[in-house]
């Protein structure tokens, strides 16, 4: 279609008119820009030049208050406290050593400290304030303020410092903050200038480090007029900073406290997870340390004591520690077998107490054997031979797939440091790792959670939660940020046959509640909280032939670090699971004797929302429980209502 001359003319006329209008609007905008430019660069240039030269007006950063970290009920588990401190700026001080000497008359300082401060001041730029002393008493602080004229360049400041009101309870999960080091700065591209403030604190490990960006907040600024000595004369304007986001965790401060105290001085870890939402209610590694000491700058002897302690208090055993899961892994092997169809819930194997494979004899823990064992019974009695038989039929690769499906050998992403992936070994893995072929003996070991299999307590809790629900529940630690709830994902179904899951759960139930269950002593009596679980005892050492010949040595006779690890996983209530718990006690001995009672106590505390009534325990256990309780110094439960109602 050809356009007529008339149309073209009409179009041109219209465009011309509109371009003129458009041009007028654009000209107006450009004029506005030009005028603003003129106003700033010509009319007010002197003011800005003065600001720029910094002769009389300075811009000071106002550090933002760090965001609070709360437990699930709103209790503060990481907060800020008032801190009085003094900084010194070289440019304003002039003769630094004289000023320091005067300052030492007010604040006690060793010669070495004074030398360190002088060194630090020389290293930093002339305009950077350097921290001279902090955590001053009010008397010292006001005395410095009073003597200000004799102390040029010295600025007394009241600031905030991180504090952890629950001391050690959350040490591993929250981590701690500390002063910003040159190394920290070198790792950050374009570091926020606020990081260069002498008193600023940066998350070093744990959630404090992982959620640093959210917790830090935004710096404010103030314009101040200073005299020639650099003393502040007045504040011209002030723009407050913005406090970091308040992070509400899924943790329950009361439960965390109970779990930590229940683990006591053992080298141990416990994880409590809500099986429907994945919320981690407690994640405790013991022994604990006091993170407040790190915030204030830990002393040499204190630090050495932590480093040299053979129970490794600084390590977070819940996510960093990996252990052979022992018999707690049997649910994985069982479900792998059932899902592969090589057995059905009714299939039986005969256990004579050992099995001969590839010229080697693999023993069941029960020397006398278990006789005929079916799927449920295999968990109930924790029969090793059943799993040796099963492993040969199902093969390691399908066991590894099931392990990963249940959360072992995969990294669960949480805002915590150094989360271990664990190992769910298979043929390909061994080839890559050791350049060796997989042996049938490896399968047998793996089937009972020994050999190459490694899992963290977190992974064991996830496994228990997934067995309990049949869903791919993943752990989460953050419930809400600044009041905005983090949505709970609709965890997808694992795609495991419900009948098979029921078999595994029934086996775990029998472990606790049948007359011959391996952990019967640690059962819960209250029917509404009926508990299902699985014990595990994993060898740390190889039993030599000579030892075997002499007979099995009891754990008590071994040095601590060669004893077995005690493990336990469980969930409750059996009919409608709410919480899953895993407990690992390093070198604790037997899973049923050591780990199971701890797990039960923690689980009961979670279910009851506080200390449960004694009637929930079997009669034989009540005296022992009461004794344990009496030795505890529990923080009050933070949960409202629930505890009262049940108790």
């Amino acid at each position: 279609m050809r356009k007529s001359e008339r149309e073209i003319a009409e179009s041109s006329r219209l465009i011309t008119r509109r371009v003129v209008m458009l041009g007028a609007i654009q000209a107006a905008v450009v004029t506005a820009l030009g005028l603003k430019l003129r106003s700033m660069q010509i009319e007010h240039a002197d003011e800005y030049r003065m600001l720029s030269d910094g002769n009389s007006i300075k811009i000071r950063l106002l550090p933002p208050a760090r965001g609070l970290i709360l437990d699930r009920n709103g209790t503060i588990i990481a907060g800020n406290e008032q801190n009085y401190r003094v900084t010194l700026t070289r440019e304003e001080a002039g003769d630094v050593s004289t000023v320091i000497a005067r300052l030492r008359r007010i604040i006690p300082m060793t010669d070495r400290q004074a030398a360190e401060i002088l060194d630090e001041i020389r290293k930093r730029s002339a305009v950077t304030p350097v921290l001279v002393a902090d955590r001053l008493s009010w008397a010292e602080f006001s005395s410095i303020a009073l003597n200000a004229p004799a102390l040029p360049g010295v600025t007394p400041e009241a600031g905030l410092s991180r504090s952890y009101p629950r001391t050690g309870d959350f040490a591993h999960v929250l981590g701690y903050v500390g002063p910003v080091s040159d190394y920290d700065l070198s790792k950050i591209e374009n570091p926020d200038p606020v990081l260069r403030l002498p008193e600023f604190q940066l998350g070093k490990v744990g959630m404090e480090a992982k959620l640093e960006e959210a917790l830090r907040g935004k710096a404010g600024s103030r314009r101040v007029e200073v005299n020639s000595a650099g003393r502040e004369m007045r504040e011209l304007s002030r723009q407050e900073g913005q406090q970091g986001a308040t992070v509400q965790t899924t943790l329950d401060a009361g439960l965390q406290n109970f779990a930590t105290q229940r683990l006591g001085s053992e080298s141990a870890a416990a994880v409590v997870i809500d099986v429907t939402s994945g919320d981690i209610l407690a994640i405790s590694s013991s022994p604990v340390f006091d993170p407040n000491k790190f915030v204030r700058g830990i002393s040499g002897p204190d630090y050495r004591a932590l480093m040299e302690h053979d129970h490794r208090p600084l390590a977070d055993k819940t996510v960093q520690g990996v252990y052979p899961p022992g018999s707690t892994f049997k649910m994985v092997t069982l479900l792998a077998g059932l899902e592969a169809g090589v057995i059905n819930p009714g299939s039986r194997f005969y256990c004579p107490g050992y099995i001969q494979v590839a010229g080697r004899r693999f023993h069941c823990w029960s020397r006398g054997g278990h006789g005929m064992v079916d799927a449920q019974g295999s968990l109930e009695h924790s029969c090793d031979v059943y799993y040796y038989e099963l492993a040969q039929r199902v093969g390691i690769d399908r066991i590894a797939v099931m392990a990963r499906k249940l959360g072992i050998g995969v990294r669960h992403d949480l805002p915590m440091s150094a989360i271990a992936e664990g190992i769910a070994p298979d043929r390909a893995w061994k080839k890559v790792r050791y350049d060796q072929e997989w042996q049938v003996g490896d399968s047998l070991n793996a089937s009972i959670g020994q050999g190459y299999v490694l899992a963290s307590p977190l992974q064991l809790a996830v496994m228990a939660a997934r067995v309990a629900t049949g869903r791919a529940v993943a752990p989460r630690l953050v419930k809400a940020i600044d009041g905005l709830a983090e949505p709970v994902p609709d965890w997808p179904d694992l795609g495991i046959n419900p009948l098979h899951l029921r078999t595994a759960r029934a086996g775990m139930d029998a472990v606790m509640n049948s007359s011959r269950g391996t952990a019967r002593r640690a059962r819960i009596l209250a029917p509404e909280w009926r508990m299902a679980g699985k014990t595990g005892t994993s060898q740390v050492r190889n039993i030599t032939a000579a030892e075997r010949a002499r007979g099995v040595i009891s754990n008590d006779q071994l040095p601590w670090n060669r004893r077995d690890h005690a493990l336990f996983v469980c969930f409750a209530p059996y009919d409608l699971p709410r919480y899953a718990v895993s407990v690992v006690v390093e070198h604790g001995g037997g899973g049923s004797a050591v780990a199971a009672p701890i797990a039960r106590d923690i689980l009961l505390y979670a279910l009851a929302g506080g200390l449960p009534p004694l009637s929930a325990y079997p009669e034989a256990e009540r005296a022992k429980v009461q004794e344990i309780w009496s030795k505890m110094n529990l923080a009050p439960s933070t949960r409202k209502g629930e505890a009262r109602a049940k108790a």
Partner: protein
Amino acid sequence: MSYLNYHVAQVPTGWRKILHLNWPLVFLVTAVSCIGFLMLYSVSGGDIDRWAGPQMQRFAVGMVVMFALAFVPIWFWRSISVASYVICVLLLVLVEVMGHVGMGAQRWLVLGPIRIQPSELTKVAFVMTLAAYYDWLPVEKVSRPFWVLVPVVLILLPTGLVLMQPDLGTSIMLVAGGGIVMFAAGVSLWYFAAVIAIVVAGITAVMESRGTDWQLLHDYQFKRIDTFLDPGSDPLGAGYNIAQAQIALGSGGWSGRGFMQGTQSRLNFLPEKHTDFIFTSLAEEFGFVGAFSLLMLYVLILGFCLYSALTNRDRFASLMTIGIAGTFFLYFSINMATVMGMLPAKGSPLPLVSYGGTSLMILLMGFGIVQSAHVHRPRG
């Protein structure tokens, strides 16, 4: 109007096209880019490899692309406009989908060694589509409701997708760019008045309702709006950044502090000194004379484009040129207004000057099409 209208016989062909380029525009674009190299050299503290060098290489590539596009007959662009629009929308959808997989705002699409930012491509492609649409539409129908609705949908579709990324800045640019083409095409002024009135009333109503008992949004939605408007892109707090920028800018005075003499210690407080805040460095070192000169160079570029559009009797070419010039205008005015504290902080580059490959490339492509419109304008 088909290409027959172009009096093809009179349009220059082959290498002779080079004589018919809009050479003043070429020189102006080069001049502004050279100012950019100079400033990038200066803010890097004299390290040419840091920003200036890479930027020069990109400029060289961009110029080749610009000349190549200038040689492509303008009717080619019109014939592919619909296809390019569809492709851009599909790319935006693709980014949206991949962004979801990657769990976060993703604006890039990676195709082997090339990284494409579809929202930037869209800026050119949909100006082209709107120009083609108004070229096709008889002039007397331009203001009829149905024929106004069509381009509005054409604008809102990619805008919505960009908004979902989420990239508020680019979506505002898209709406404004599209609005300029519609305005130039002659859509009745009443429509624009109505849209402006509705937007102003809507924003006022929503913001006024905050904290009252007839609040139109939930508190958390307001919070989201807050974070949306200021997505923590400047970790210092907007106030501090802008204050520093203004000090640098104002202290330049009439003639500035001299090349590389800006108080670098202050500028080190500006994390975006080589991108969004480069204008402050220029104003500090070259003063009002330098800053105003750059503004005038921009105005000249705009003027040459608009003049070229006015003298072009081909409706498509004319509207296309106006649309690209309008987008260019938005770029530099928004950036300058931001660093001078007239608009809330929002990441936007200074065109042809800020460090960054995508925006430079898209701008030079845009100017290539403007040149093509100029070279192939109907004659006689």
